[in-house]
């Protein structure tokens, strides 16, 4: 049985520079957890960065206060979870619909596809003035 019990929270103005700061926070999250397989860390980090980048790129503020990016990371015995918060943002009409078109021509629109491929479940729900992305990945401890 593993003793995984790690939680971290990140919040910043939803601007591109926040993505590098979030990535640093993810690196610290993994340093707290010594039994998560490297492949799971790699996949989960990529999915969280994709979701956060989506918030930075597409978040529409409800007022002049701007959109804020929040990320809550947690790890339990068999699961990694990230709640990616798009705070003070308009609701997305269809947030989980990926871009269409010739995949070899697209220069954007692969983020949602990657998120779906990299985690076990992904949901998006509206809570007050916030869009909440919940990314979960099953992750058995490394033997």
């Amino acid at each position: 049985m593993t003793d995984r019990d790690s939680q971290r929270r990140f919040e910043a103005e939803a601007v591109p520079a926040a993505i590098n700061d979030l990535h640093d926070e993810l690196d610290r999250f993994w340093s707290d957890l010594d039994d998560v397989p490297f492949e799971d860390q790699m996949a989960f980090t990529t999915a969280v960065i994709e979701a956060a980048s989506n918030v930075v790129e597409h978040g529409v503020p409800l007022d002049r206060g701007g959109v804020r990016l929040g990320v809550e990371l947690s790890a339990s015995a068999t699961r990694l979870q990230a709640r990616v918060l798009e705070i003070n943002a308009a609701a997305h009409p269809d947030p989980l619909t990926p871009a269409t078109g010739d995949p070899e021509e697209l220069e954007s629109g692969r983020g949602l596809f990657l998120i779906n491929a990299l985690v076990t479940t992904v949901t998006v729900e509206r809570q007050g003035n916030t869009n909440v992305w919940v990314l979960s990945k099953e992750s058995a401890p490394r033997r």
Partner: protein
Amino acid sequence: MQFTIEDRGTYTEVVANGRLNMVSAPTLRSTVDEAVGAGSRHIVVNLASTDFMDSSGLGALIGCLKVARQAGGDLRIACAQKQVQMVLELTNMNRVLAPYATVEEAFARD
């Protein structure tokens, strides 16, 4: 992330050091644009020190590929690390941007 350009005679090497994400992707675009504008037609992006790439970084690489091809040349990638290979394979973009094991191999058979 830092980009450095090296003229290797028959090709230009762009070394990408750090995370290739939405922050650094525009710089990659402008770096390759400048190299092609200066006359480089064959570009190799060296990813040996690129420890992370997301869909924004991948989109920038594809944009750079188009720029090189429109100029009559080509862009290839080399030394892709595990996470970069994962993103290329999941998106099937390894068919378009096949990673070469070394920078030297990228244009060796042309």
